[in-house]
């Protein structure tokens, strides 16, 4: 059962350090099944996609990235990637809509492009979201472009996401009338429609969960559709609740652990037993904090998905593992 069958645009945000880029990439892989074309976009100029997928730095044009996670019958889809950069987006926009040949070049020569993309209020974000919009809706003037079944955006962090998506508001002081105004209104219509969701990535710690809660409130306040919360980097769940309680209170039966270790053929080492008990206590303490944060996440009233913390880090193979887990949980 898929939770978001009607959604074309998945926007993935999250606090720094929670792994939103990893989740965006895994989600793109999970969506790319049965011959579907999925576009994974990044907007912050960090070339994170290239690093995760171990390819050359991405140009500002769409390119095929990799094969998606196959369906049970073995048919995969294709993940494409796009590094959206504001300068190329602006030049493309000018040539698509205004056929600004000579003037376009003059604009560049006089530093207007640089001005518009770095300092003009809100313009940078509008250019990035504008290109995103084009990738979802495909402009008829963009001949021969791929029609994507889904677009996944590795978006700016939670603290900036509303400002980033709320383009008509950003432009309010700038363009009250004119073509840009009507275009930004069209973009807002897509972002607020059931075809878009904003997923929030978090870890089970106080600040990221708080930011997620605030982010959801802010998104709802401007009628942007909240998707799911992806809880990332979940600790291993190897101990039963009663054992966790014992570990926390320091009442684990030491003699039993020693006997078990001997039975399993581990050399007697009091230091090891001490270490195991300390690790158990720390782990139990963390788990208790995680559980209290998990309750807060559950109270948010949105679908949640969980991804494990991988002790060896995230490489290309791990991305597919995470994608499989996401698909199993129904986000894709």
């Amino acid at each position, binding site marked *: 059962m898929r939770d978001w069958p009607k959604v074309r645009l998945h926007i993935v945000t999250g606090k*720094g350090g929670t792994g939103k880029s990893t989740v965006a990439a895994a989600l793109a892989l999970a969506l790319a099944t049965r011959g579907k074309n999925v576009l994974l976009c990044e907007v912050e100029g960090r070339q994170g996609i290239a690093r995760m997928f171990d390819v050359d730095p991405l140009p500002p044009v769409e390119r095929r990235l990799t094969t998606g996670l196959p369906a049970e019958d073995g048919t995969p889809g294709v993940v494409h990637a796009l590094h959206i950069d504001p300068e190329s987006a602006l030049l493309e926009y000018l040539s698509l809509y205004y056929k600004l040949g000579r*003037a376009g070049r003059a604009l560049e020569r006089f530093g207007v492009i640089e001005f518009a993309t770095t300092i*003009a*209020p809100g313009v940078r974000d509008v250019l990035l979201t504008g290109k995103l919009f084009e990738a979802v809706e495909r402009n008829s003037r963009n001949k021969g472009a791929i029609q994507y079944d889904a677009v996944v955006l590795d978006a700016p962090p939670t*603290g900036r996401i509303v400002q980033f998506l709320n383009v008509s508001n950003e432009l309010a002081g*700038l363009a009250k009338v004119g073509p840009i105004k009507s275009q930004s209104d069209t973009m807002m219509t897509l972002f607020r429609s059931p075809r878009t969701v904003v997923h929030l990535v978090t870890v089970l710690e106080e600040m990221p969960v708080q930011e997620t809660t605030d982010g959801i409130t802010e998104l709802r306040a401007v009628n942007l559709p909240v998707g799911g919360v992806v809880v990332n980097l979940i600790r291993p769940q190897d101990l039963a609740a009663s*054992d966790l309680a014992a570990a926390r209170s320091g009442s684990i039966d030491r003699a039993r652990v020693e006997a078990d270790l001997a039975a399993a053929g581990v050399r007697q080492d009091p230091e*090891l037993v001490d270490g195991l008990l300390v690790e158990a206590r720390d782990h139990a303490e963390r788990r208790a904090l995680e559980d209290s944060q998990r309750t807060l996440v559950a109270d948010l009233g949105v679908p949640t998905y969980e991804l494990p913390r991988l*002790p060896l880090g995230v490489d290309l193979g791990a991305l597919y593992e995470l994608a499989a887990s996401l698909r199993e949980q129904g986000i894709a």
Partner: protein
Amino acid sequence: MTKARTRVGPTGTPTSDTQPLALDIDALIDDKATGIIVCCGSGGVGKTTTSAALALRAAERGRKVVVLTIDPARRLAQSMGIEALDNTPRPVADVSWMDGFGAGGRGGPTEGVTPRLDAMMLDMKRTFDEVVESQASPEKAKQILENPFYITLSSSFAGTQEYMAMEKLGQIHAQSGPESTGGTYDLIIVDTPPSRSALDFLDAPERLSSFLDGRFIRLMLAPARGPARLMTAGLGLITNALTKILGGQVLGDLQTFVSALDTVFGGFRQRAQKTYALLQDDGTAFLVVAAPEPDALREAAYFVERLSEDRMPLAGLIVNRASPAPSGQLSADESMTAAERLRRDDPASLTAGLLRLHADQMRMVERESRLRTRFTAAHPQVATGVVPALAGDVHDLAGLRRVAQLLAGS
């Protein structure tokens, strides 16, 4: 300088060992010559907590400290008494001398004197407004503050926050200095914003100046300045294009903004250059904070290179939230084998669970240590401190003291 401090870049001494130099936090904060500590690093690595912990420790060891934070966790901010974002340093309550410091101890304060720690949360827009007000006539200032371009520039232009953090640093520094000269603080600790791109705070003044000095701006000012007839043809083309896209009112706003800003521009540039020089000063120390993750360490490597390129005094790298090394001599693989053996007899075995946790921990520790070794191989001259992860969240002074102890390596 009273003591030699680790310094990298052109004046640093490289070593060939892969063991990193140890970062001596107490030597750094006790050194009276250290007047400013800047904590930088990518988002989510614990910069704010690190800055606050350093500040607390320095204050409790006898320095008069102010810490400038950007976005602390709510409960941490509450415990430091800086919930209100009022852009003024406020004293932190319940700071107490560390053993051996205070009355009769080191640092020499007299009886009855309490440690001095102030904290403040940066209000970016307000800082910017204050700069404008201090630079322009009241009438001109009003014109700028109300302009839509200024409003966006001061509240959301990428880099403004970084620039304002540095501006505030300059302001506080101007009021600080030795007690004999009436200074309020002798150590300023700055937490930098989680930049979209690393070191935006170094680039922001430059970007702002280059924007104000740019061709486009000069063009916008041209009609007001007179002999620019030659440019008029190009200008016409551009204004037409812009009017077509944005509408006429935008150009008007822009022109007002630019010409208003032009009058205060000299002041801006001067301040930016002063702050930049302050950062390069020997009394400043940069600490790069990272998490033991590939992305954070890659970012940290970039910071280190960039700081040395800009001749900024780097004191070292702090690897935060490292997985604590377990005791005992059991490898991850041995541990997993033993766990499986126990699970076969008793699927709910507690010891098997402990062994699996141990294996997981060992793998994390090995991976992190490999990452750190790589960093050290590439940057052998950078002194490194490793702070093990705490089991709980930090949201009070006791937690900060614990982090500070770990930072100081005890």
